[in-house]
């Protein structure tokens, strides 16, 4: 055993070490002062950094800064602007899209970006090369039959049908980014850990479970980024991430816990609360009694106090929708005004619909928290139940675990239940991605949860999909949204807000509606 003197020595050594540790914290900071290192904290490692093989937000974040897409979203909206493609023209029948490519762009490995690279990036995700573990390939390139090189800086996409939303697909963080063919060949399966793109930041290192380090691509075609290094640090707990931000060890974070917002703001941290690309809704099963009666749907729409839900249930961290589309999306009609909260009117409509003594009904819900419903399906259902009771509608709530819930609504008539709570997270920022959830043909795929069917709506969706000019598309979507507003197949409950927080010395930071942060223009003030 330790003798007395050894023991004393040991204790003293421990004490000295502790003091030394507490004292010398500043060294690493001096090293950082020379270059601008931006540390961004997110919840976990990406699944991978090959855009063809991932489907999670943790991957999308670094991916949009390592790679470029042919077209990209404008900041703050999902409208499209040029990126690696400088211009594009669809053929008159809408089945062929020709893209002129940006010249003098190089991948991070020094190989040139050209038509071959685009053909390679896309073709590996088209049949027959497409594999089952490419989660977004069939969505993003769904209508694409072939992609061809016209000349070194021109490519042509050949679609099976005219499909206008295709352009928005090419801006997505998943599947669409253009990869270096040379690097994919070189790394093979390991490309997922060794990404090479043309984006503003080059991949440097991935320490699994800890961080990913990117360095500035000084030759970026859009101008060198202002930061020298961009580090994604993985910090699992929301509150721990917030502590990191408060100590200044990280400059920004996503996934802010609603309970931490006030604490962070009091500490001088800026919190971004942007409406996200999602919709939280209640769907009526409008193909069967009783909600095949539009009057009854209208009655329920008047009975639910949506303003209260947004303000109290979601604590202001959600926005009140005017229809299916979030307001930042192209095609959003500003003139919409859905049925307002009016319990008297609801009672009256209920009587007119043949239920003067009230109605017994069933509301289906899920037990988990969803991105569009951060309080969970059961709390939302309870709030709606209370509102409905006030106008004489007695709604029984049936709750299912999320996995089973997705199996409840078969394409046929749903046996139990009259209404259900559900939601949608947008993929590509195109209006069709949201509005087609109400299309008759999507009843079969179960995406049209309420089994709403309206010929005019179907026609307008086809028109919006095939029209070339955005104005023409928007006109079709305006008309469609007005029909839906009146028909009330859904009650539009909320658009959940996305949050990110950053320190006050950060400039140019914004959370894009698609949930990612583009760092090409972000800077740190000294």
């Amino acid at each position, binding site marked *: *055993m*330790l*003798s*007395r003197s050894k*023991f004393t020595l*040991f*204790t003293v050594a*421990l004490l000295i*070490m*502790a003091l*030394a*540790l*507490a004292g*010398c*914290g500043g*060294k*690493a900071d001096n*090293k*950082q002062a020379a270059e601008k*290192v931006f*540390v961004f904290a997110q919840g*976990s*490692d990406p*699944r*991978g950094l090959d855009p063809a*093989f991932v*489907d999670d937000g943790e991957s999308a974040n670094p991916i949009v800064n390592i790679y470029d897409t042919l077209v990209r979203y404008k900041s703050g909206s999902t409208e499209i602007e040029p990126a690696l493609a400088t211009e594009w023209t669809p053929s008159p029948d809408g089945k062929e899209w020709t893209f002129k490519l940006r010249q003098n762009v190089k991948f991070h490995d020094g190989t040139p970006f050209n038509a071959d690279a685009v053909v390679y990036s896309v073709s590996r995700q088209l049949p027959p090369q497409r594999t*089952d*573990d490419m*989660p*977004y390939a*069939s*969505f993003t390139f769904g209508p694409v039959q072939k992609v061809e090189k016209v000349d070194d800086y021109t490519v042509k996409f050949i679609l099976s049908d005219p499909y206008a939303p295709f352009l928005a697909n090419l801006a997505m963080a998943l599947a669409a980014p253009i990869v270096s063919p040379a690097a994919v060949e070189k790394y093979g*399966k390991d490309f*997922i850990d060794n990404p090479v793109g043309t984006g503003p930041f080059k991949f440097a290192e991935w*320490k*699994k*479970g*800890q*961080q990913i380090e990117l360095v500035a691509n000084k030759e970026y075609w859009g101008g060198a980024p202002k930061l020298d*290094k961009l*580090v994604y*640090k*993985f*910090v*699992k*707990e929301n*509150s*721990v991430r917030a*502590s*990191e931000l*408060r*100590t200044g*060890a990280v400059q920004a974070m996503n996934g802010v816990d609603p309970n931490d917002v006030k604490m962070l703001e009091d500490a001088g941290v800026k919190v971004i609360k942007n409406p996200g690309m999602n919709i939280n809704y209640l769907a009526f099963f409008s193909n069967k009694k009783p909600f095949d009666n539009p009057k009854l749907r209208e009655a329920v729409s008047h009975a639910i106090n949506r303003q209260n839900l947004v303000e109290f249930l979601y604590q202001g961290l959600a926005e009140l929708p005017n229809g299916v589309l979030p307001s930042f999306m192209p095609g959003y009609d500003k003139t919409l005004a859905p049925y307002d909260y009016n319990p008297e009117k609801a009672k009256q409509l209920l009587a007119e619909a043949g239920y003067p003594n009230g109605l017994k009904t069933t509301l289906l819900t899920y037990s988990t928290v969803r991105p569009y419903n951060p309080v969970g399906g059961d709390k939302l259902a309870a709030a709606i139940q209370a509102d409905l009771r006030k106008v004489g509608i007695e709604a029984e709530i049936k709750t299912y675990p999320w*996995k089973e819930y997705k199996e409840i609504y078969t394409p046929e008539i749903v046996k139990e239940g009259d209404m259900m709570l559900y939601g949608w*997270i947008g*993929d590509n920022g195109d209006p069709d991605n949201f509005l087609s959830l109400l299309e008759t043909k999507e009843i079969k795929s179960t995406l049209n949860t309420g089994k709403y069917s309206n010929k005019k709506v179907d026609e307008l969706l086809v028109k919006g999909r095939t029209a070339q000019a955005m104005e023409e598309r928007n006109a079709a979507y305006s008309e469609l949204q007005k029909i839906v507003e009146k028909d009330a197949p859904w009650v539009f409950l909320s658009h959940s807000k996305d949050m990110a927080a950053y320190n006050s010395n950060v400039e140019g930071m914004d959370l894009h509606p698609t949930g990612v942060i583009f760092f090409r223009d972000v800077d740190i003030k000294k």
Partner: protein
Amino acid sequence: MLRYVAQRLLLLIPVLFGVSLFVFLVLHLFTADPAAMMLGQHATAEQVEALRKQLGLNDPIYMQFWRFLTDMLQGDFGRSLMTRAPVMEEILNRLPATIELALASIIIASAVGITVGVISAVKQYSIFDYLSMIGALAGVSMPIFWLGLMLIILFSVTLGWLPVSGRTDIGLDPATITNFYIIDSLLTRDWDALVAALRHLALPAIALASYSTAIIARMTRSTMLEVIRQDYIRTARAKGLGERIVVYRHALRNALIPVVTVIGLQMGQLLGGAVLTETVFSWPGIGSLLINAIMAGDYPLVQGSVIIIATTYVVVNLVVDVLYSYLDPRIHYS
């Protein structure tokens, strides 16, 4: 002795078989369809079915278990569904971080626990005794998760002494030879890296050590009290030996045998507690790997991690049992 060790090693087989069976059944019977989880919201039923077939998920469960067992015996736990890397590789990448944390904690817990225990016993019913035993009660009762958050708020956010999370400073690029950051930085004489590694290790190690420290302190105190009342202690005192020699040489040495058992058991506990500590402090060890794997429904990775943790637990206990016979010549295994 060798025979005993061999026997114990043989016993490992049914234990690990049981663990494997349990983990396998829980994951396969009670969790969501991994094929559906891998493919995401746009997958068609046919795609899910094709992937299920490819992963062998449609085979009868005993066949799947047999395949899992035979692969495992060859050290092959399959590939992670999340990262597509071999599970064994993922685990080996993370294991050093967990061991480093567990060792740091056991050192803190043993040093503090034994010291406090001895002083409490020698000065029984003193203020120190009362305070330290109240502290020990708190240490046993406090959830690691909560304690971790409190330590962060106090030492990192409020006082700014220590970093919040992670294993080293961002911007420092320590050489990784063994993946034990402390050993690596010593080997390369990179003192900045050593300081950074120790500073990052401090809070998680303290949080993780809290429970074990308390247990060890209480155990040391009670065995010390027992030993101090023995005849040979009275004899030693009667001989006129100094109090310190009596306490440290005669009493402590004998009191330590049960304490070593407890320390050994705590080593296993620490690996379990590491799951929570690693999550709070984003410590990139096997515990945080396991949590991520559970969240993502990555069943090969969950199976692999649990089995590795269980194996370590069993082996550590074996090592402790063997150590006894060295500490106490009266103990013989045959």
